[in-house]
């Protein structure tokens, strides 16, 4: 069946093209909800341009994942068919699976994206909290099955909602299709490729920019000798483009996502939503200890998805959210009075403990902004050296790039006090710092 296509204007990629089927999915209320989930929470309190949503990001991820897929298939078509037994029909179906999975990968974000993720419940007290990916997969299976499975354009593919959920969860039942999962879940995936450029564009910084075009034309697939399985890789001509993406992420985290005022608003927002979840006036079915309902059945997922930025903002505007809702309304966020270096030394941490003790009851909260900007070992980005020659082989990016190898994890601890106590607290910290200098 031929399909009409539709173009959506995008500030990063020009046009994002949708099929009839994809347009129906985008029009589904569960996807439209993403228009009401901001990409960067309350980052606009620092960077006023940060008002974009998960809706446009999801379209962008689908666009980039498709370009990645197409580049790889074009470049390695013979290899995929002869060495890995792909067929043209199979590749076409995989392309559709990649597009839909990329489009739907963020369905399960809570209000204001990551800020409220700490309110995710656990299946058991010992297990890890659910993650937004779990809600995305549940929403696909429980609420979008009809629009995914019963479209005429799906007759050729027979895709199931479960296939997409399994792809998002990384379950092995999909077999060889999982080769493509790195396009939406790896250190070089379409998700990062899109959000770095998009966030930079909207907030007006250049930290997240890198050479996407170069990266795209150097993506490839090769056999990993360690596991004897195919793996997505970058030809060595794209090594510096891959480096640039890693560095872009490092700079965006240190300059934007870990910015101290932004972190304070994440704290206030999480406490506000927690209060709203506990309060029967704002939540008809309050869960235990102010957590979201688990993604275990249709009713729970519907309740969860009913939480959007609009609902939270409406409740806060109406006077809800308790103490922290009031702080959001008045913009009297807690103030940072001390922070360690981004990569602290032992004496920094020891001094931070002294500050914490000296401030005692003045302290409102302590935050540690922590991330490793490059995952080594199994997640290392494979670089294909000497492609199309007898000496072709895979090597890890971290072994070839001194820049990547030298990236240290950031673990910056900050101490915040209430707005009204900031002057007194700063005096206490200054006294301690003078004492320390005198001792040195």
């Amino acid at each position, binding site marked *: 069946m031929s399909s009409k296509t539709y173009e959506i204007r995008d500030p990063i990629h020009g046009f994002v093209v949708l099929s009839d089927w994809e347009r129906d999915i985008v029009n589904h209320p569960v996807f439209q909800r993403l228009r009401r989930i901001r*990409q*960067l929470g309350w980052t606009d309190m620092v960077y006023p341009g940060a008002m974009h949503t998960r809706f446009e990001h999801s379209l962008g991820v689908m666009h980039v994942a498709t370009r990645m897929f197409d580049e790889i298939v074009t470049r390695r078509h013979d290899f995929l068919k002869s060495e890995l037994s792909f067929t043209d029909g199979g590749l076409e179906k995989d392309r559709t699976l990649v597009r839909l999975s990329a489009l739907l990968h963020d369905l399960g974000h809570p209000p204001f*994206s*990551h800020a409220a993720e700490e309110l995710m419940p656990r*299946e*058991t007290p*010992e*297990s*890890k909290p659910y*993650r937004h*990916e779990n809600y995305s997969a549940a929403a696909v299976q429980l609420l979008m099955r009809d629009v995914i499975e019963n479209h005429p354009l799906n007759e050729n593919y027979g895709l199931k909602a479960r296939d997409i959920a399994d792809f998002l*969860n*990384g*379950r*092995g039942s999909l*077999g*060889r299709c*999982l*080769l493509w*999962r*790195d396009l939406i*879940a790896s250190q070089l995936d379409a*998700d*990062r490729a899109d*959000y770095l450029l998009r*966030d930079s564009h909207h907030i007006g910084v250049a930290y997240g920019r890198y050479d996407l075009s170069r990266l795209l034309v150097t993506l490839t697939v090769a056999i990993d000798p*360690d*596991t*004897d*399985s195919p793996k997505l890789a970058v030809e060595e001509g794209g090594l510096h483009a891959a480096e640039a993406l890693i560095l872009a992420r490092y700079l965006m*985290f240190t300059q934007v*996502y870990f910015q101290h005022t932004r972190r304070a608003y994440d704290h206030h927002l999480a406490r506000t939503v927690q209060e709203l979840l506990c309060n029967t006036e704002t939540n008809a079915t309050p869960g235990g200890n102010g957590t979201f309902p688990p993604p275990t059945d249709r009713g729970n997922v519907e309740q969860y998805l009913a939480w959007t930025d609009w609902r939270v903002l409406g409740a806060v505007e109406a006077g809800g959210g308790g103490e922290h809702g009031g702080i959001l309304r008045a913009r009297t966020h807690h103030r940072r009075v001390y922070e360690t270096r981004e*990569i*602290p*030394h*032992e004496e920094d*941490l020891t001094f*931070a*403990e002294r500050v*914490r*003790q000296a401030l005692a*009851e003045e*302290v*409102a909260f*302590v935050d*540690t902004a922590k*991330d*490793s900007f490059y*995952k*080594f*070992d*199994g*997640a290392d980005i494979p670089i294909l050296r000497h492609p199309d020659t007898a000496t072709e082989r895979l090597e*890890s990016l971290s*072994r070839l790039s001194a820049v990547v*190898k030298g990236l*240290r*994890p950031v*673990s910056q*601890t900050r101490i915040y006090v209430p707005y009204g106590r900031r002057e007194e607290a700063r005096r206490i910290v200054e006294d301690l710092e003078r004492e320390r200098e005198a001792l040195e």
Partner: protein
Amino acid sequence: MMDSLPIPWNRYGIIAELACRLKGASPQFGKTALQKSVYLLQALYGVDCGYDFSLYAYGPFCSDLLGDLDTTGTLGGVQVHALGWGLDGYQIEPGPRSDAIREKAKAFLDNGTVQDSLTRLREDLAVSRPKTWSYDRRLSTQTGTWAATAINPLATNLRVLSSRSSRGSPPKASMLPSQSLRGKGFYRLGDETGSVSVHPSPQRTQEQGNRTRTVRPRVQRLPVRWRSPRHVPEADIGL
């Protein structure tokens, strides 16, 4: 409000301590061995390091532990070197501030259970390795060497068994595999009384025409063909 900062000195301390205890005895003490040994400390010996492991392509894996290793390195508690010589992998050694970092975790490390567990980990997993592997010859020519390749299957098997049992409950000695793994390239477990030791499966010979070749014991690996290394998505911050 908490009285102290949430700085995980105990975690940094145990990493520094393992690097000290396994220096020399284990030239192969690298990132994979660290993952498996901390997993075994928690799962088998009951040392609460607070890590939450997922099953990964190479066995139990915890991204927080990898992050803490990086931080311990930054603090000078350990030094992490790439192996070089064309070999993939890393070697973890005590760092210049190892004593200071372990001092921060003194109360935890001096605990009798932790001390006993660290000793048992070192002793129980001492294995006799054949000298025929070229990889081993480069790194260790001694028998009785503690090796990541021996600890991997044990930790992996425990993690698999743990996930098959009730969610989150620690594995029991009776759950440890023995007979079922024999002859399948797995390492066997010496006894099932709770004191665990591992031994490499004996070498076998195989007839090939008029030649006989020695088949070396194989390191157990999960069936990863067509499987993503991230069956359980790790907590990457995806913004």
